[in-house]
């Protein structure tokens, strides 16, 4: 499933010594595998449950929850598609995630560029303040944001919610881009300066293309953040047709609380795109989330 080499795979020497070691202590190897297999099974149990249940008839489900589906049915997906507006929710989440991520990147890149590459009063304090904002829970800001957006009639609109989401992910964008811009070799900037490039040219034609890895990380981490959020969407987008996928499946889940196979069919529909994205872009997910935590 995952054979592609990732940056984390690069440290090779330990492999040989660990293998040598395991050969001399087979019980240690067995214990290690046993723990990892047990943990993996625990992780997989909900996925297994979701899949087999989604394919079961209600009668088969009431007889046995754990067993494989027999007879197989696709009826649940049909009911789920009629009971929930998955395509609409999916579209709403995509619009918000794309809008918020694009806006955040657009304002963060110039700011990070200034902080990383120019000397001016307040640059350091701005970065320190920005980093502190990264751990602030959004619920703290939610009441004034809600009242403000209600006053300017941006409640229940894409722009209102996208603006809030963009703002909330911007501290991380600035933090990551500043660190990345700082790591770009000075010679590249220097030679462009000699050619008479303006600072804007340097940002757009040198810094941005060289920062592709950081930009990909930001698109993934921030996009995932917006995509997975429930609280803000619940409060800022109360209209039915503006529901995001997360609000949608929460409502869907409680509506079909007594029809578990349909509920699970719905969850399966909602999770497939994410699972595919994860398996394809796993290393960016991991790198991005680890970068957000400790390293620059």
């Amino acid at each position, binding site marked *: 499933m995952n054979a592609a080499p990732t940056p984390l795979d690069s440290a090779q020497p330990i492999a040989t010594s660990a293998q040598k070691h395991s050969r001399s202590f087979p019980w240690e190897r067995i214990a290690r595998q046993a723990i*990892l297999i047990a943990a993996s099974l625990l992780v997989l149990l909900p996925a297994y449950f979701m899949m087999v249940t989604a394919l079961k008839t209600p009668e088969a489900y009431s007889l046995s929850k754990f067993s494989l589906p027999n007879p197989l049915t696709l009826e649940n997906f049909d009911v789920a598609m009629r009971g929930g507006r998955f395509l609409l929710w999916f579209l709403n989440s995509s619009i918000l995630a794309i809008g918020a991520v694009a806006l955040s990147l657009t304002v963060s890149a110039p700011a990070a560029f200034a902080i990383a590459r120019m000397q001016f009063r307040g640059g350091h304090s701005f970065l320190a303040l920005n980093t502190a904002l990264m751990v602030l829970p959004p619920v703290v800001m939610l009441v004034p944001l809600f009242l403000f957006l209600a006053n300017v009639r941006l409640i229940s609109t894409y722009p209102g919610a996208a603006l809030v989401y963009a703002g909330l992910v911007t501290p991380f964008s600035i933090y990551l881009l500043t660190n990345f811009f700082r790591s770009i070799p000075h010679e590249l900037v220097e030679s462009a300066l000699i050619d008479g490039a303006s600072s804007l040219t340097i940002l757009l034609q040198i810094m941005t293309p060289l920062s592709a890895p950081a930009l990909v990380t930001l698109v993934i981490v921030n996009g995932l953040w917006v995509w997975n959020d429930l609280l803000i969407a619940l409060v800022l987008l109360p209209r039915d047709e503006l529901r995001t996928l997360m609000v949608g499946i929460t409502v869907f889940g409680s509506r079909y609380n007594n029809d578990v196979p349909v509920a699970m069919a719905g969850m399966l529909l909602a999770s497939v795109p994410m699972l595919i994205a994860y398996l394809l872009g796993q290393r960016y997910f991991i790198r991005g989330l680890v970068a957000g935590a400790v390293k620059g």
Partner: protein
Amino acid sequence: MLRTSRFVPYLYLTPAALLLAFTFGYPLIAIFDFSVRRIRGASGPFVGLENYRQVLNDSVFHLSVAHNAQLLLAVPILLGIGLLLAILLYERPRFWPLYRTLLFLPYILAVPLIGVVFSNMLQLNGVINEILRAIGLRALALDWLGSAGLALWSVMGVIIWREVGFGMTLFLARLQSLNEEVTEAARIDGANWWQRAIYVTIPQLRGVIEFYIVVSIITMLAWVFSYVYVMTRGGPGNATIVIEMYLYNFAFRNALPGVASAVAVILFLFTLALTIPLFRLRAQALEEDRT
């Protein structure tokens, strides 16, 4: 450093500063203002510390704080399991990349999705209880989310299930950046697995462990809303209400933004108090990376 005229850096900074002022600056000032008013619509009359008095005397608020405090018990569990898995994967057992992919997966999945699936699994006649009965643990087949005494523990279990992969990945990334010679030397000197973990590996991870503890504490205090909302809505009764849920109820169900803002101020001060050590630890962790 680029040489530019004095105003140019501020020009680059302005759009981001405006956006941050809108999402963080204004709301952080406004909650202090709202918290001393009886808000109707956009503002209202000054009421002094009345809102705070109401919150601090409310037994439901006490209950919420107690529940968040109980969730803190998840932190040592998360740390223990995360470390164990990271150390096991670091030794590169067979199939380790597959295990890593699988074990990190829950952290990618959205909380509402996990919440809906688990709340179905944890029903009284759900799959978890069916498995427990099948393996002879009939006495353990309980109403996991429906009974007041158990519901919060069940929610905590789901939080642990999802968040463990993050700690594991964090520790593993740090381990792989370490110099293996130290561990190797300990091995040659005859230290067993346990001794190597306790005396060699874990001390080298100190910075990232401390950082992880603080981040997890903040998570348990102020980032658990969606778990609770999806699985229990704070119930049964108020058995799983947490501070965020309490705030949400006051702001958006009871329409008392003044009271909700008082809660927001309290939560903000909590987080701020934790952010300061976090900063020190982050600086330390970066320092360790350089050495």
